[in-house]
């Protein structure tokens, strides 16, 4: 049985354990009294907060139960926020206003003069456009009101496929849909003006196929600006999720096994040298966007996560070292499953990590970034997308996501423009800061009978998917048989059919469509030819300058790969003097190219 099969068993066993505790609480009087005592104790310690209208509310809401069996079901089955199995939240208070903010409000008799800053905003806005300096400008614009600088970077097509801007036939793609990065010099420009070693800064990079190469360039750029001592201080995330690329997003550049090996090389390096870095973001987002059902999204993402954990542990990296550095990324759309999808995922992850991998508390936490669904946004009557995204945001925060990106309404046509980005960001602020839904009370919307019904149905369906993958021989075997791909494609096909035949209502598209097509007048963020040419020219200059050194670095890299040793240190050297395409090309000579799956 693979680890995934053991995860299924561990969840089943845990559910049995919960039922046993319920029974025991009802029959074993002493145990029942203990639970009741603990429950009353927890309730007594909950602080009270006051809303702006003066309404007193507890900072944590709990079900109104006083029967030991039900208390056991809650405490063991769901856990308080921040307690195993973390159904309600990974942390105790999530988005609540800090207590001192309320106190200062009261002290000033309702006049909030001294707004004390929160520690961290959960807002993350994904951006990347044109050349490095253009994205850099956008980053500065986006963070100008933010206390913390959390940058989330989108790369253009050539970068995502590990090829250079001067490659045959990619000219029109330079800087489209993300930023063009060819060399360490671009990487220096990209984050210029930000203090990469500061605790208030982190960089997130959404790239998987060439992730180890881009990671090496980031480190090289940081060293150029701040010296070698900055490396252990670097904070951020790189996506580096190979499985989901093969299953859904199609941005794989090496065959699966060497791709996984390069990934493990990088994880081994960052775990030791960059303890604050998240070297992989296990992503369901693209699985969801490729058209999977929400259950497939969660099931494939979690099973991919367990497969990575097994692989990294197999390399000898201790689970409690890499476990807390794994992070997750899920899609949030409008289907009913999303009411509890991330909640259930967090619970399964915690149980599996604890029971099967023997992980400690920090490695049990599924730390989640959510993005609202891009697929749910449409071009027709596009302003409706604001409402779609707002509803998805509510769902995402009901699932206690740790961070969130809200899509811009103009995303169906273009890289989001500033106007719509601002609205998307403000949507989150309105929800978290202006509205009282999430800032006063934990569990404000948790635990409704409907939510519990969704939780049970979703968990059962995810475990069924796990069993099927296990039957096929585990995640890697199932991927090679293209099981997940074919399931996702079937679901996508059904989704499209439903839209076309109207059984899936899309307002403004197949229902309540107002006559002629409204042609959206949005300002398009297209990359001018002159900028594309500038990128090509810069690259040529870089290649010319480093021609001699590049050959040596590439030879050393290839030799390390052939020897089968951890090649990341050689990648770091190569990143100083080689372009992305040069490195990709050389690695492909050694390990081959990815053969597309259809």
């Amino acid at each position, binding site marked *: 049985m693979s680890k995934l099969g053991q995860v299924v068993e561990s969840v089943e066993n845990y559910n049995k354990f919960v039922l046993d505790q319920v029974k025991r609480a009802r029959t074993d009087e002493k145990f029942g009294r203990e639970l009741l005592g603990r429950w009353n104790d927890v309730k007594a310690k909950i602080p009270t907060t006051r809303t702006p209208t003066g309404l007193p509310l507890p900072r944590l809401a709990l079900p109104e139960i006083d029967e030991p069996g039900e208390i056991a079901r809650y405490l063991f089955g769901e856990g308080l926020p921040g307690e195993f199995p973390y159904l309600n939240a990974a942390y105790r208070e999530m988005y609540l206003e800090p207590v001192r903010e309320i106190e200062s409000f009261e002290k000033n008799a309702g006049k909030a003069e001294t707004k004390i800053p929160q520690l961290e905003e959960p807002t993350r806005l994904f951006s990347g456009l044109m050349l490095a300096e253009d994205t850099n400008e956008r980053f500065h614009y986006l963070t100008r009101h933010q206390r913390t600088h959390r940058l989330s970077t989108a790369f*253009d*097509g050539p970068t995502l496929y590990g090829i250079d801007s001067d490659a045959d036939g990619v000219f029109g793609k330079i800087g489209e849909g993300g930023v063009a990065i060819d060399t360490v010099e671009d990487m220096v420009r990209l984050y210029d003006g930000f203090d990469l070693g500061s605790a208030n800064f982190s960089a997130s990079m959404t790239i998987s196929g060439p992730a180890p190469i881009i990671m090496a360039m980031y480190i090289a750029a940081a060293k150029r600006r701040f010296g070698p001592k900055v490396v252990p201080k670097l904070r951020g995330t790189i996506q580096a999720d190979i499985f989901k690329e093969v299953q859904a997003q199609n941005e794989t550049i090496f065959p699966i096994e060497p791709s996984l090996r390069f990934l493990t090389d990088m994880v081994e390096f960052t775990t030791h040298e960059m303890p604050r870095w998240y070297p992989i973001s296990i992503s369901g987002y693209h699985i969801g966007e*490729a058209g999977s059902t929400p259950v497939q999204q969660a099931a494939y993402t979690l099973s991919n996560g367990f497969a990575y954990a097994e692989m990294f542990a197999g390399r000898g990296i201790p689970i409690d070292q890499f476990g807390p550095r794994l992070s997750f990324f899920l899609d949030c759309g409008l289907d009913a499953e999303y009411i509890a999808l991330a909640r259930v995922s967090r619970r399964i992850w915690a149980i599996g990590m604890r029971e099967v991998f023997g992980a400690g508390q920090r490695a049990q936490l599924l730390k989640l970034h959510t993005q609202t669904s891009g697929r749910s946004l449409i071009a027709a009557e596009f302003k409706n997308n604001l409402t779609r995204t707002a509803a998805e945001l509510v769902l995402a925060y009901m699932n206690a996501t740790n961070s969130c990106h809200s899509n811009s309404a103009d995303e169906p046509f273009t890289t989001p423009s500033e106007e719509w980005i601002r609205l998307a960001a403000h949507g989150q602020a309105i929800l978290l800061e202006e509205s009282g839904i999430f800032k006063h009370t934990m569990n404000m919307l948790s635990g409704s009978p409907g939510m519990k019904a969704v939780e049970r149905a979703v968990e059962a369906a995810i475990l069924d998917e796990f069993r099927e993958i296990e039957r096929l021989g585990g995640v890697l075997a199932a991927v090679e048989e293209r099981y997940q791909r074919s399931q996702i494609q079937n679901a996508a096909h059904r989704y499209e059919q439903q839209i076309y035949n109207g059984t899936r209502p899309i307002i403004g598209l197949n229902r309540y469509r107002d006559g002629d097509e409204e042609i959206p007048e949005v300002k398009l963020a297209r990359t001018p030819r002159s900028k594309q040419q500038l990128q090509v020219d810069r690259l040529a200059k870089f290649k010319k300058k480093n021609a001699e050194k590049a050959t040596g670095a590439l030879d050393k890299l290839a030799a390390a790969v052939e020897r089968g040793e951890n090649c990341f240190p050689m990648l770091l050297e190569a990143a100083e003097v080689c372009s992305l395409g040069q490195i990709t090309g050389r690695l492909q000579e050694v390990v081959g190219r*990815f053969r597309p799956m259809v």
Partner: protein
Amino acid sequence: MASPIRILTAVPICDGHDSAINTINLEFIRHGIEVIYLGYHRSVSDIVRAAIQEDVSAIGISSYNGGHIEFFAEVIGLLRKKGADDIKVFGGGGGTITHDDAVIMKRKGVDEVFFAGTSLEEMVRFVHQRYGKSRTKRPRPKSFDQQLAHKLSEIEDAYAKGKRPTRLRDATAWQALNAQRPTSKKKIRNSRGARVIGFTGPGGAGKTTLIDELVLRFLNRSPKGRIAILSHDPSVVGEGALLGDRATMINSQDDRVFMRSMATRGQAGGLSPATQDCLALLADSNFDHVIIETVGTGQEAMPFRKNGIVDLTTLVMNPDYGSRLQLQKIVMLDLAEIVVVNKSDLQRARTAHAEIEQRLEQNRRNQHLVDTVAKRHRDPGVDQLFELISNR
């Protein structure tokens, strides 16, 4: 009856968005269209080369990652340069292509741009109306690939109308024409020139991957050599076909490789009614090797036997063929010169090798048995198979 409409679909380079095109492909084939699917992340030259070799009526491009104005224009430009502008271009891409973009794209020669919300029926109707007429007046071919592609279409069209193609009468003239073309060093084994190697075996055994890996070795070994591939996929009963072998081939997208995808068009046995004549034409066309791949086949007799053009037959097996009894039923095991157990990294491969070896020994025909892992880069088993095929 006229031949089904043949179109090529693809997603541009640096773009992996294949969800829409997968759905559209399925809709097309259900409505009688033969779709050669090239896959995602494909360059302009790959698309144009494939379109010319496959002699499609039109190319459908699904683009989501931007740069579409340039990309579509480059495809049209290259088609013109190659004298193949009878191949039309249409496409779409959700909301990333704006109405303004579409105006520019149409001005540059794109037939139609579909936006988000276009129904599948509308796209099918468009293809039938716009590309449904048979192409009677063909432009004068500008390249050998194009000339060969037109000839192959004539053969397929003739069979679709229930006639024997006229090509056979001028076979000698064709040979003479081709004899003038320069080729690499020759190891000609028969009067026709090329060595014809047949690949057959059950679906999912990895024939296409194996062929693509052999092509890589051939291209590396013979810097001027040329190779032709005739690949088959089944037609949906009485309707279109999804010809998808190109999508998983990474090494065969090369100017020295001529590939043609054929639908079986209702014929059982893994080949098309037009196969024999098409294969004969390719064998006469001065390639070093001609590779023919059947659709995934069952236990029935050898598909190549009756036409006699194939010089060497390779049966590709999956280790998971079932019991030893099943093995006894596979007629092709008696007829193939080379038997390949692909996916030999699977657990069952060792047993499979032993069982097949025993079965081949009973035949006493000096058949070769090779274990390969075609998906692995530089697989020694594939090297061995390549040597066997090159030297036999």
